[in-house]
């Protein structure tokens, strides 16, 4: 079943087409990678899906339902969660409260504060942050802040999770841990759509990869297909 679809998704910033006529779809249970050189429009595409920006023209659909033009909090409650390329944790709030916010507000049904606390605690354990639950988020390492963003996103009980460069800026050990985290999230039954520059991660985790360049989709296929695609190699390495 198609969980997320985009039809002719386009976004202009002034005269520049940041995303131009992109069609895409993500099936339930898949891990789909989104790659492309800097400025290709990957994060803009995520912003168009999550409601931070509205495509014009074009439409985005979640489980067949049109979500174009809905507000971010509505899209979040429907079951689309995301993390951010530049981490946006609530810096002065304790780690647990960061996640608690997601449990309390991220779902469409109301949650009691005891249930929310239990859920948030469980998620901190899932991402491996139980030891620092009372620490203000700003005092965490970058890798842990990214984990915290994942926990906060998971707290909203998403069906699909958009990960925006989860591994950027991490050292090799942390990258390995992040990859393991992604597979565990997939095993929970959550569909994943991820922007990533770490090729090792993309190639080993993703079922399918979409390549953007100058706002246009230039290739799509399995990791093996993408690895040998002439257009993709040209875009990344030049001719």
């Amino acid at each position: 079943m198609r969980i997320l679809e985009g039809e002719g998704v386009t976004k202009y910033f002034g005269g520049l087409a940041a995303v131009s006529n992109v069609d895409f779809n993500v099936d339930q249970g898949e891990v789909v990678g989104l790659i492309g050189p800097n400025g290709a429009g990957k994060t803009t595409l995520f912003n168009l899906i999550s409601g931070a920006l509205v495509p014009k023209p074009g439409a985005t659909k979640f489980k067949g339902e049109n979500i174009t033009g809905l507000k971010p909090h509505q899209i979040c409650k429907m079951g689309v969660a995301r993390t951010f390329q530049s981490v946006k944790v609530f810096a002065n709030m304790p780690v647990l409260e960061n996640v608690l916010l997601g449990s309390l507000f991220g779902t469409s049904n109301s949650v009691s504060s005891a249930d929310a606390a239990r859920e948030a605690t469980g998620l901190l354990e899932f991402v491996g942050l139980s030891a620092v639950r009372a620490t203000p988020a700003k005092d965490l390492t970058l890798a842990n802040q990214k984990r915290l963003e994942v926990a906060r996103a998971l707290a909203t009980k998403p069906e699909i999770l958009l990960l925006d460069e989860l591994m950027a800026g991490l050292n090799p050990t942390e990258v390995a841990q992040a990859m393991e985290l992604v597979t565990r999230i997939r095993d929970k039954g959550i569909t994943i759509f991820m922007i990533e520059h770490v090729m090792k991660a993309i190639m080993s985790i993703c079922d399918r990869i979409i390549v953007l360049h100058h706002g246009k989709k230039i290739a799509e296929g399995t990791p093996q297909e993408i690895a040998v695609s002439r257009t993709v190699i040209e875009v990344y390495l030049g001719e």
Partner: protein
Amino acid sequence: MNITRVDLKKVWVPGLLLIILVLLATLSLYASAYTVILLTSILMYIVLTVSWVIFSGPTGYISLAPAAFFGVGIYTSAILGKELPLPIVIFIGGLASFCLALLVGALTLRLRGIYFAIFTFGLVELIKHLLLWYEINMTGTRGRFVIVVDNNTIYYVMFIILVILLLTAYFIRRSKFGLALRSIGEYEDAAAHTGVNVNALKTITFAVSAVFVGAAGAIMATRWTYIDPYIAFNPLFSFMPVLMAIFGGMGQFYGPILGAAIFAYLEEILLTKFPYYYMLIFGTILVVTILYLPEGLVGLVQKLRRRISGGKRAHT
């Protein structure tokens, strides 16, 4: 050791609060008329400051609109005071402020940072001058007289407004909405993407905080007996809550209360004892506070407490 301290705190904080409440509630029985009037102003400033902190404290949106809501309350009292009983006038004053804040909030809360501050300040001036134009061209007089209410009644009304406000502020702070307001102050986009309806929450909180300012304006008008747009929409009522909140420190619930109480008392003392140096001393205190106590009085209290408990630990 930790447990005993927590227990102690659990006993003496509510105890102290209760004693203060009882003392304030029975004030008219033992205090002089001057004390009642002085405490009315202090309570008024606490109302203005605490209601300002409900919205601006956690979200970091600096609102300079309190004077507008205060003025709306004052004019409600001036226009309706002769026709309707006092409690209804005060209720309508709060309601009018609520509606104005809802309208302004819906229009402007997409503005962030300094733009929001400037807009809200502009609102005060806009209403003031619109009203001035209306009064001069339509009614032909600039000011209005307000019915007189005795000082004890004014005091008790202000006291009731304050108690309701403190309960409201406390519950908002402790509720999940308090958490959401803080997350808006930290990272508004992230809060929205975590399921918080940021615009609705901001607008409603802004409006709720305005109710108390409007109600305080409605009762204070009866003390001043004569008002005009310049008195009612005095920008000082926008700046004072901000200064008092910073002076007290916004980190703790009691900070703004302490700040407003001391600040208001200080103002009165300076104004009566040193009328010529009043502004000079006032300004100096402010500058020193901002320079050396960025966390306000709360920060000072915490620093002292840490020093004391740190000393204890060093000896054991």
